[in-house]
């Protein structure tokens, strides 16, 4: 089912981060392997989004280290992280509301014109539009206008744009923070399928969702956060929905050291 290798492409060790009196991350270990879909689940406020932000260069942690391909690299800014081939769909999406879907899709990665025009910053607008259309179609997104600002679009349309963008650019890791939350039934199925397709290209996928059926459907490995701590890291086939829900709420406690459960 997975073509996973044994070196994690991204590995976090002992991450902690406190906001005021709230300890959002508390000594979290986390790792993702190429060609594997890792589901990250947990109750509301468990720290999932905070972990994603920390791993995508958007949030400084108080302590802990992050390794990429087994080595420490600069992951302090979003642009450094995307240069490593890591893309993220944030829970709050973070699209530029006044820009259109195509501009959002290519923001920061515009295709320059050839020659002098390109040096001066002119862009291949038509090409970008055509490629975006293909990417949106692939997800079955119902984006009805490619020239309206995304701020005017429906929740699901915006989510589809953000997913299309991340999937299009990721080459090593893609984080999807509740990507299907606003999507229709059909779009959700497309996204789950896309996740599998991306995984099969050897890219590591981190899938955050509150929908246990979806998690069971695509995940190869499941890591559970509870109150800022990882309480489980288990292969998807070895668990059940009941166990996962118990782990998230604290009704079930795994008597395991994180090291033992690794792979």
């Amino acid at each position: 089912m997975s073509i996973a290798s044994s070196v994690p492409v991204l590995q976090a060790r002992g991450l902690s981060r406190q906001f005021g009196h709230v300890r959002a991350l508390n000594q979290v270990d986390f790792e993702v392997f190429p060609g594997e879909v890792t589901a990250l689940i947990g109750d509301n406020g468990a720290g999932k989004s905070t972990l994603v932000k920390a791993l995508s260069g958007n949030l400084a942690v108080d302590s802990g280290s992050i390794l990429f391909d087994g080595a420490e690299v600069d992951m302090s800014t979003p642009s450094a992280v995307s240069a490593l081939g890591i893309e993220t769909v944030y829970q709050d999406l973070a699209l530029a509301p006044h820009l259109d879907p195509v501009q959002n899709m290519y923001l920061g990665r515009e295709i320059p014109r050839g020659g002098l025009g390109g040096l001066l910053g002119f862009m291949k607008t038509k090409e970008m539009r055509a490629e975006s259309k293909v990417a949106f179609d692939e997800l079955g997104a119902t984006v009805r206008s490619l020239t309206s600002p995304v701020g005017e679009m429906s929740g699901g349309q915006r989510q589809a744009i953000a997913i299309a963008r991340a999937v299009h650019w990721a080459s090593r890791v893609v984080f999807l923070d509740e990507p299907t939350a606003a999507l229709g039934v059909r779009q959700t199925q497309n996204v789950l399928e896309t996740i599998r397709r991306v995984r099969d290209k050897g890219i590591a996928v981190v899938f955050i969702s509150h929908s246990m059926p979806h998690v069971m459907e695509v995940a190869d490995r499941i890591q559970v956060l509870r109150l800022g701590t990882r309480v489980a890291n288990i292969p998807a086939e070895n668990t059940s929905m009941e166990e996962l829900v118990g782990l998230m709420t604290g009704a079930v406690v795994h008597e395991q050291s994180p090291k033992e459960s690794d792979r």
Partner: protein
Amino acid sequence: MSITKPPTETVAIGTLDEPKQGFLQRLVRAQAFQILLVLLVIVLIFSALAPDTFAQWSNFRLIIQNASILAVLGVGMTYIIITAGIDLSIGSVLVFSGVVSAIVMRALGGEGWGTALVGILVAIACGIGWGLLNGFLIAKAKIPPLIVTLGSLGMALGLAQILTGGVDIREVPTVLTTTIGYGNILGTIPTISVIALVVVVLGAIVLHFTRFGLHTYAVGSSELAARRVGVKVDRHLIAVYTLSGGLAGFAGILSLSQFSTTAIAGQSQTNLNVIAAVVIGGTSLFGGVGTIFGTVVGLFIPAVLQNGFVITGVQPFWQQVAVGAVLITAVYIDQVRRTAAMRGSSQSLWRKFVSGGRRG
């Protein structure tokens, strides 16, 4: 869950889309067309009231000439306000650049192009210097733009006064005054206005067609989003403030050419006038929206009003009242027409926000 995968029909993308829009259409639709109509109405009214004096090319020529320097400043300010920033320092930077440039040119002596060229470069360099400082403090030190540029306003003006001892310098190479200041192209078009037009057109092209312009909108639309997708927001903000500073420096040399003096204390209203023009032109102070074309129209509304009132002999005290009232009315009409153009979207708060309506 056993949902049969539905057909992945390619739905609706672009099918309901508007017909493809050219440059002109985009400009017109987007922002500034309505306010242009308001300007035209004002011009028509004054033309009817004073056909022999107001409605003359000679008069329009002067209005255009007098708006040229502000237009150069307006280009930079439009970029800044689109990033949701503000630059109060342009007037002072203009003065400072003019002063330093005048001092350098005086030291070099000479009335020819050699000296003038050095002066122009020095002025632009000074402006860029202040712009860099502003941009750095805003982007890196994270100080609010209002405070930074209020501070550099005072600093640039103070330094200009220290450099001159408060006394204006009046020695400006004659080539500057005769060509840029009062020269004409094609016999009747002021050179200074042609220069301003070039700056405006370049500014508009860069804003609307290049990566740099796109990132300007992105930073203003959502700094967070821009940062997350890897736009170098800090660098971009520095660049935008530097652009504004550089243009203010260039305006400094234009002002020297036109007035043959450094006019140290004479730019106290410039910043507000330019900001007002940008906002009249439909750019939102909350960022993400705006056009250079709108700013230019926004500059002409108060300029034409003032000219028209003086020509039609309105009392000076009443002029202020009338300019204030017409300003508000003009923007209101613009608002109403734009809303109507959106077909009853008067309740769409989002659209209001986008169009800079409610709060910009």
